[in-house]
């Protein structure tokens, strides 16, 4: 109550100081001031405050204001004008037309909603049937169905992966330079790399709990990425996401980046001792957050674009694949899919591809070569990864003795699929 009265008195005194009270009200205030010293003090303070506020510094007129303003206005006008693909005077007409079209479409949809619903239902059913039929028939299947942590680590460090449960065939990515990479399918190629299990990696590098979690997440993402990057189809078709060969270098970079300097030395030793294809060359880097590394792993092939290799041709094309559904279908029909995939893989390894002399010069970017025991496809890919620079860890290919077929150019990254070379340490 007292507070309210005080507020009322403040308001009255404030208006008194401003001289906006009626004559009668002003007399009442003056009679109050004659007896109430605190009210009198308030009036003095209010007058002082008004004076102080009135003395606040003012800005001088700005003679350049109009010039700057007119420039800003022109810029805004241009910006606004550029946003529209048509002259502004058509805005009302176009708005009216757009509204009319929306209303007409809406009316038509509402009037024909039952037929429309039936039509959509029929179409979606048809699409679903075709889709499921194709998937179950195995027209396109992932080459790798279950890439676990061990396999992901193996791929990351050495670029190798077993293709089948018995490890009779293996898949390998190797890089010689940044100008491109080579995909090879064959059955008589040897590997000189060893393998490192996750436990051994942990024992050597000794990552902290947090680092281990980061590396776990990275390996899991890598596994998923590999699963969705290599597909096989009927008629000896192989579809590979073109940026897959960069994945293992990226993974080495990621792992190196999240390690402390001393751990990075151990990691480098581990890589060197096992003849891994990469080495970490810059070691002065701060350990970052988990999100930074995980973000750098692309979840799916960019734009669903694949290099599609058939016995007759090779193309770079877009395939829209719902990997989640595909995976679900495979899990539901594991046995059928497994047999079909094995048959497909056998055909691909059986070298039923067009043979092209190795040393022939091709003017086109992508080239297909043939050999005795393998086929290879060379694809010129873009070079350095941008995110490597962001992470300030440089991972370079380690110089290695020629392990590929003599006569092949050294300036390309190579990916090979071959038989009987899977590392013995990998347990499928």
């Amino acid at each position, binding site marked *: 109550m007292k507070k309210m009265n005080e507020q009322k008195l403040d308001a009255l005194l404030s208006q008194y100081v*401003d001289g906006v009270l009626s004559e009668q009200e002003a007399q009442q205030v003056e009679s109050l001031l004659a007896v109430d010293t605190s009210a009198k003090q308030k009036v003095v303070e209010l007058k002082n405050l*008004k004076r*102080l*506020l009135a003395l606040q510094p003012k*800005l001088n007129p700005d003679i350049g204001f109009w010039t700057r*303003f007119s420039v*800003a206005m022109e810029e805004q006008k241009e910006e606004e004008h550029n946003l529209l693909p048509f002259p*502004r005077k058509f805005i009302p007409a176009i708005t009216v037309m757009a509204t009319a079209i929306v209303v007409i479409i809406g009316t038509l949809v509402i009037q024909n909603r039952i037929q429309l619903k039936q039509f959509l239902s029929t179409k979606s059913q048809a699409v679903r049937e075709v889709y499921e039929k194709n998937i179950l028939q195995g027209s396109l299947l992932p080459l790798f169905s279950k890439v676990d942590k061990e396999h992901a680590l193996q791929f990351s460090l050495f670029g190798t992966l077993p293709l089948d449960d018995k490890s009779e065939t293996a898949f390998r990515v190797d890089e010689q330079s940044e100008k491109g990479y080579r995909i090879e399918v064959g059955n008589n190629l040897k590997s000189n790399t060893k393998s490192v299990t996750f436990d051994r990696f942990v024992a050597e590098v000794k990552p902290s709990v947090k680092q281990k979690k980061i590396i776990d997440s990275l390996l899991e993402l890598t596994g998923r990425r590999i699963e969705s990057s290599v597909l096989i189809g009927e008629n000896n078709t192989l579809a590979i996401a073109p940026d897959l060969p960069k994945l293992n270098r990226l993974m080495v970079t990621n792992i190196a980046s999240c390690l402390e300097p001393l751990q990075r030395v151990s990691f480098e030793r581990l890589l060197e001792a096992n003849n891994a294809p990469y080495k970490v060359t810059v070691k002065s880097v701060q350990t970052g957050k988990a999100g930074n590394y995980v973000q750098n792993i692309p979840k799916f092939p960019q734009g669903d674009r694949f290099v599609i290799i058939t016995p007759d041709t090779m193309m770079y094309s877009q395939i829209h694949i719902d990997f989640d559904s595909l995976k679900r279908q495979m899990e539901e029909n594991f046995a059928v899919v497994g047999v079909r995939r094995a048959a497909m893989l056998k055909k691909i390894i059986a070298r039923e591809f067009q043979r092209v002399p190795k040393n022939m010069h091709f003017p086109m970017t992508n080239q297909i070569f043939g050999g005795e025991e393998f086929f290879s496809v060379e694809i010129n890919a873009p070079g350095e990864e941008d995110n490597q620079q962001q992470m300030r860890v440089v991972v370079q290919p380690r110089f290695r003795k020629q392990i590929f077929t003599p006569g092949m150019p050294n300036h390309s990254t190579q990916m090979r699929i071959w038989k009987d070379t899977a590392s013995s340490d990998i347990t499928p």
Partner: protein
Amino acid sequence: MAIPIPRADWQSENERFRIGVRARSFVPSFPRTNDADSMTNHQALPKPNAEVLRKMDDEALITTFQSGDLDVYRYLVERYQERIRNLLFSIFRDRDFIDDLAQEVFIKAYQALPHFRFEASFYTWLYRIAVNKSRDELRKKKTRRFFSFQTLDEGIEKELNVRLSVQPENRDTQELVAMGLKTLPEKFRTAVVLKDIEGLSYEEIAEVMQCELGTVKSRISRARAMLRKALKPLMEEV
């Protein structure tokens, strides 16, 4: 209020022109000077010189603007830029920032001027745009403070108390009053700035802030009470 037009012949032509252009059904949100028909009309009319335009009152200039002579907006900007910049300066106390904000106010006014109905005086209308703009900016700042977990008002209050505690001869009174103003909530700050710095009447403030007269009185009274409290040592000395 009579419109003082210096030349009778120009007045009659302008009147005719104004009626003709006002018949247009659509006024674009951003009037364009290179609009084909307005250009044609411009060329057909003798244009008053800059000195004459500069002496014209707001209402006449706006009428001319609404008639299609968009160039006269320059004289309105020149006339009010100082007041608008000072108003924004009193609210924000940031010289670099207020120039951009003042430009935005005048751009907004330029866009809205074709729809101006002469129901209020131009400067209260312009003040209203400026006050709305500053309110938006203060809200943005408040949001940014919220997301950056900083309480700027508390920081200013603390600094103000420290500054007030030093010897009277070492104090910069104007700066302290400015800091005191910054501690006020936006509505109170704007009301007291309009009243005590800009010298607007209660009725004009009600028009600018788009609220009741009683609300304005209450806001000013409360703002002053807060300021008296914040600047207590200063009040006693004065």
